[in-house]
């Protein structure tokens, strides 16, 4: 068929080679114990906030992506309707939890680079404390029958099961978990958005009762109502917007071998001491053209304290078995070698399911984090997820 007769407006413009995507803005709602607002209201505020932050009109958005667990949020189409987005080329609703944020940014960046879409809002919105609590909801899937009837019935327990084996095999313990908790609490004191800002010392931590070995309450994220969002667009477009572009230098998602029957099923996962970060690290850093030693700061997904240690070791940012000492010696503080979880993490800022791990990375790379700003912030590693599958990004300043 002769295609030269097609109307020119139907011919997709050929993209320039090596178009690069960037994050151009972030938006948040306040974090609530009980929002008394609809999830759509929260989502729309966070997305509108990201647009306002970047200085882009909703009419320019042509893609929205989000994730939810057990239908605890609203679909992208609802946000498009609420914001008055004229048309969507991408509406990506994904049935995942904390594995999703970096994954969605990476997918959006690739779709932008492929010319499929121009500007994508990515959000997580939830009444995660007052309504649908991810930590204790019963996940659909074939694996639940082997867990729920015997009281193995909360996500916290699954990550604790991994944490217990991880600490045992790597010769680490409760003081190493305490190091993560105390370090992140110190950051949260500087973060007005954080839910847990009460100063905490080692004696205070150790005095708390166990919830599920090896976790005390402060080893666990604090559930909240709220939302946050990022805007991803081409680097070229981002350079014309209000904020410094945050370049999506690299990304990766991995589900390792035999990732299970549902998001809580880990019966066939061979090694509880290594999660997806071990599987994707080489690809992540290779694609960015850097080594782990080049990373200046990190935002590591932390639904629970041990997840930070497994993540630091899995990415190769710290040697196996050394992450606890690394944190205890102050290396993840602002004046340390690798400032990490500078918002206080999900442990102290609150559980926006790791979307706020990405937004914090953006604020840091842009140099906008105020009193908790990392002095070295041009190359940041970010992760999403705790167990069999997850994703990561390398975000960099525009150089």
């Amino acid at each position, binding site marked *: 068929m002769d295609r030269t007769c097609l109307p020119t407006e139907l011919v997709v413009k050929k993209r320039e080679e090596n178009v690069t995507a960037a994050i151009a803005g972030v938006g948040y709602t306040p974090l609530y114990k009980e929002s008394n607002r609809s999830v759509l209201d929260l989502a729309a505020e966070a997305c509108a906030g990201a647009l306002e932050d970047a200085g882009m009109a909703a009419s320019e958005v042509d893609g929205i992506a989000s994730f939810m667990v057990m239908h605890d949020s609203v679909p992208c189409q609802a946000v498009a309707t609420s914001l008055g987005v004229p048309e969507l080329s991408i509406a990506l609703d994904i049935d995942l939890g904390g594995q999703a944020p970096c994954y969605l940014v990476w997918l959006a960046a690739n779709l932008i680079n492929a010319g499929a879409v121009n500007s994508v809002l990515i959000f997580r919105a939830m009444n995660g404390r007052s309504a649908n609590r991810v930590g204790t909801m019963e996940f659909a899937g074939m694996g639940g029958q082997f867990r729920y009837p*015997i009281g193995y019935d909360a996500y916290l327990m699954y990550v604790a*099961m991994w944490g217990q084996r991880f600490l045992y095999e790597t010769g680490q313990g409760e003081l190493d978990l305490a190091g993560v908790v105390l370090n992140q609490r110190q950051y949260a004191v500087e973060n007005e958005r954080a839910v847990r800002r009460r100063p905490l010392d080692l004696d205070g931590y150790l005095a708390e009762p166990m919830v599920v070995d090896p976790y005390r309450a402060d080893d666990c994220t604090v559930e909240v109502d709220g939302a946050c969002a990022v805007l991803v667009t081409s680097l070229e477009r981002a350079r014309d917007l209000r904020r410094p572009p945050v370049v999506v230098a690299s990304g990766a998602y991995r589900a390792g071998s035999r990732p299970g029957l549902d998001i809580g099923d880990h019966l066939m996962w061979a090694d509880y001491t290594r999660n997806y970060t071990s599987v994707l690290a080489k690809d992540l850093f290779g694609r960015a053209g850097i080594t782990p030693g080049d990373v200046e700061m990190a935002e590591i997904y932390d639904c629970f304290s041990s997840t930070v240690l497994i993540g630091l070791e899995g990415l190769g940012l710290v040697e196996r078995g050394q992450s606890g000492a690394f944190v205890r010696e102050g290396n993840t503080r602002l004046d340390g070698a690798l400032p990490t979880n500078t918002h206080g993490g999900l442990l102290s800022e609150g559980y926006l399911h790791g979307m706020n791990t990405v937004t914090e990375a953006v604020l840091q790379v842009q140099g906008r984090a105020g009193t908790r700003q990392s002095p070295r912030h041009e190359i940041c590693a970010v992760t999403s997820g705790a167990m069999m599958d997850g994703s990561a990004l390398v975000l960099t300043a525009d150089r």
Partner: protein
Amino acid sequence: MANRPVPDVQSASFWEGLTNHEVIVERCNDCAIDFFPHLPTCPRCGGRNLVDRVVPGRGRVYSWVRVHRALSDEPAVQPPYAVGTIELDDGCRMFGRIEPHEAAAIGLEVTPRFIDHDGWTELAFQPSSS
């Protein structure tokens, strides 16, 4: 929360086996491996030359958690209790309560303890020496 299992087509023989106080895993005749949970195909070769196989259910604790405080609104079990990932001698892993919970430890050798509930049987584990 589900306080009793809802078997599916794949898992029905496992739960039925427990009511007879037998531990049934799935075996791929082509790969000569046992696996659990039951799947429509072998997780190694993807084949369907599968049979149910009764195993002794002995093994050791790969990891464990002790629950001090109920986290769900309608807990199936009252704390304190321990749940382990048990690695059976044939390589399969299963989740099960460890009783007594004070005994839970990585590497502990365990044997099955069948607990009959109304309408289903739970596979728990106890120290082999007891």
